[in-house]
């Protein structure tokens, strides 16, 4: 593989838009039972208690140990029955009746009943649970028999199905099976395809096949080990040498090279709803002016960023809603230098240009590249951007305290419903509209309204309105949507990630 060939390959993939892959898992031939798989990730699991986490590694790992009543459909269009084999909703969207699967056992051998369901949901609704706000609409949970659960809501709430599919609402044994929370964290029990084997903090966590798994024949794998390797280059080296089977989150530049190289490795990308924003502090100086914000948004060449920094693994954003969950429309965000200049000219005292600071994460090469591209673009409007770096663990704290002017922020969806993301323009929420402090009171009733509609079409109409208004106000500039990526050994089959990041690990198998 000559330098020239690789360079050529890299250049070619810049223009191609390779990010349109759907979440199909390839299956060459029949799945083999047995085998072990090692996956390298950049961060370790924080906790195995569903109520205690908000970070992706913990969430995605827990999803292999515990399961919810309903599960997201892989294509992102809605939910499918899971531990609940069926459900009905009252016309007023207030009463939800679910029938449980029969004969589902926990990994310790005990049978799952409606008692466990009630306890788990109530536990997840307590004030100290990280995602308890999603369960806020719940008024009461009744369990008429072992396999029936009736949930009554305070108001009409269409997204409730998606809420039941949340990882935090996974079903675990009532009362932690008699143990304390700490003990449960060390020896968790769930209905998922895997159980905890061993966990060395900071190094690796090993999950073993759940012999009692209620889906017969699955999972294929005997074990899944997640190792923690912070450095992307190290992960790449490891997957190249065969030391690991999957490199989760490789650098985009290496994706293109591996793809053209072929051989023992292959690349995979799946739509993920991961959205990157340039957030602007709407209360700061020039950024108070909507013309300035619009100008900045128009001045960013999103397509160029996707091809140069993401090597084509992404889509230029057109709205602050991602494309992998229904309700996304083209709300008008795009690259148009002429429009940018026109907008800035209307801003009065800022028309001649001004200086502004852009906050990025230190050590984040993508941030650095994107920041410099934006810096060069805005220079054409006489806007002088100073790039500041800060520690990745504190960047969101800095942004949330309002001590910034412009900064990068990203979000990934946790629920398979547009309700989560649409509220990112709602200034009343804790993150104050992606830290922008944007507040448009006209929008306030629209969010509740959208959640209260029974028909999907009605909801879409409302959400489209919200996107148009928020985008017109340019409260942030959405940059791009990027897929979830991986470099994997060609021996691995059936590996994929879904719309809210969940692994298809039960269907994954490895040639051995």
């Amino acid at each position, binding site marked *: 593989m000559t330098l020239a060939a690789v360079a050529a390959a890299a250049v070619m993939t810049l223009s191609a838009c390779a990010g349109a892959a759907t979440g199909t898992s390839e299956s060459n031939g029949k799945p083999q039972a047995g085998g072990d798989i090692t996956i390298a990730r950049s961060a370790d699991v924080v906790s195995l208690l569903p109520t205690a986490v908000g970070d992706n590694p913990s969430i995605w790992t827990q999803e292999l140990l515990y399961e919810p009543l309903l599960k997201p459909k892989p294509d992102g269009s809605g939910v499918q029955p899971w531990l609940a084999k069926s459900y009905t909703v009252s016309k007023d969207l207030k009463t939800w009746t679910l029938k449980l699967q029969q004969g589902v056992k926990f990994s310790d051998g005990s049978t799952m009943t409606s008692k466990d369901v009630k306890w788990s949901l109530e536990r997840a609704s307590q004030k100290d649970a990280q995602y308890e706000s999603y369960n806020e609409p719940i008024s009461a949970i009744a369990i008429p028999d072992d396999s029936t659960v009736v949930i009554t809501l305070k108001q009409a709430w269409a997204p409730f199905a998606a809420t039941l599919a949340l990882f935090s609402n996974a079903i675990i044994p009532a009362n932690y099976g008699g143990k304390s929370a700490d003990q449960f964290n060390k020896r968790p029990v769930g209905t998922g395809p895997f159980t905890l084997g061993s966990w060395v903090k900071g190094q690796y966590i090993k999950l073993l096949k759940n012999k009692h798994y209620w889906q017969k024949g699955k999972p294929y794998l005997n074990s899944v080990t997640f190792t923690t390797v912070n450095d992307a280059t190290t992960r790449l080296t490891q997957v190249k040498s065969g030391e690991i089977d999957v490199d989760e989150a490789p650098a985009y*530049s290496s994706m293109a090279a591996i793809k053209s190289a072929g051989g023992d490795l292959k690349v995979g990308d799946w739509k993920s709803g991961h959205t990157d924003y340039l957030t602007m502090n709407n209360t700061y100086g020039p950024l108070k002016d909507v013309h300035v914000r619009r100008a900045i948004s128009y001045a960013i060449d999103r397509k160029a960023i996707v091809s140069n920094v993401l090597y084509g693994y992404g889509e230029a954003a057109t709205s602050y809603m991602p494309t992998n969950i229904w309700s996304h429309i083209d709300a008008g965000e795009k690259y148009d230098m002429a429009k940018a200049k026109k907008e800035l000219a209307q801003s009065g005292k800022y028309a001649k240009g001004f200086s502004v600071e852009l906050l990025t994460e230190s050590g984040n090469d993508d941030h650095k590249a994107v920041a410099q591209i934006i810096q060069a673009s805005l220079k054409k409007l006489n806007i002088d951007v100073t790039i500041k770096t800060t520690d990745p663990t504190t960047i969101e704290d800095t942004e949330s305290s309002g001590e910034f002017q412009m900064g990068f922020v990203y979000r990934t969806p946790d629920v398979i419903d547009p309700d989560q993301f649409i509220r990112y323009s709602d200034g009343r929420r804790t993150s104050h509209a992606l830290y922008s402090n944007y507040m448009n009171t006209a929008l306030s009733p629209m969010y509740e309204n959208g959640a209260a509609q029974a028909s999907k079409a009605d909801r879409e109409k409302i959400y489209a309105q919200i996107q148009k208004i928020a985008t017109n106000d340019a409260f942030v500039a959405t940059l791009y949507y990027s897929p979830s990526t991986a470099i994997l050994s060609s021996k691995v089959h059936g590996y994929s990630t879904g719309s809210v990041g969940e692994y298809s690990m039960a269907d994954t198998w490895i040639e051995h």
Partner: protein
Amino acid sequence: MSSANISANEIPAAEASAHARGHRVRGNTELIAGSILLVLVILVLAFGQFINHFDYATQNLPEAFSPMSATHPLGTDNLGRDIWQRLVYGGRVDLLIASLAVVFPFVLGVILGAISGFFGGWVDMILMRLADIASAFPFYILIISLVFVLGAGAQSIVIAITFVSWVAYARLVRSETLVLTSQEFVTALRTEGFTTSYIITRHVIPNVLSQSAIYAMSDIVMNIGVIVTLSYFGLGITPPTPDWGQMMSDGQQFFAVGQYGMTLAPGIAAVIVSLALSWFGDGIAKLLKTSN
């Protein structure tokens, strides 16, 4: 009177001195090689930008990673910027900061060291305890912490390095001063009625400078390393201003796809400059040694 050494009192007549001085430079390979290399480096950094018409910040995204060619002598980086221009500009930035970051510790250290050695007593004790405190901290940790607190950028780097490295100069100068003040001409100056500040500035400091000057050369080399390290951690120069450390760390991830230019160019340049400065410093040391 000690005549154990052959050259004690056997001092050449004044006529021979000029010849002797010239001879010392001629045989001094490090000085010659170092000076030549240093002059070359300075010329390149001063005028290298005129080779082509690009500047260090202009991006050309479609032309990213283009190979070495007539238009781009070292190719382009990941954002399509000309690597040669960034190398030249970055070199200027780095060397300037590295040199500035030597000047302040030098001046501060020499003055404090001379005062410390000349006066002795509690002045000496206090200054040396200060020096001990400053040098008790691990060098890089202190620098990184200071820059973190002061914010990234050239100014903070210079301040941080000054705060930490004045100690070496002070100690060097102090010990030389101690030796010097035992010389009889210092007693003579005192009895002739010269003021202490005159003695220190006109006689002590000029005599103790040579060692520090040599050390300063190697200090510049070390400072380049410090700036490179700081930039690697994002604490140094802010983009789009290029700097060799950042160029190297930016280019690191592209090794996997066979793109080495971004990292190799500044890496090799840093080695060349360090070599030039080291040789030059060694050469000066040799020169001063033979003349004494």
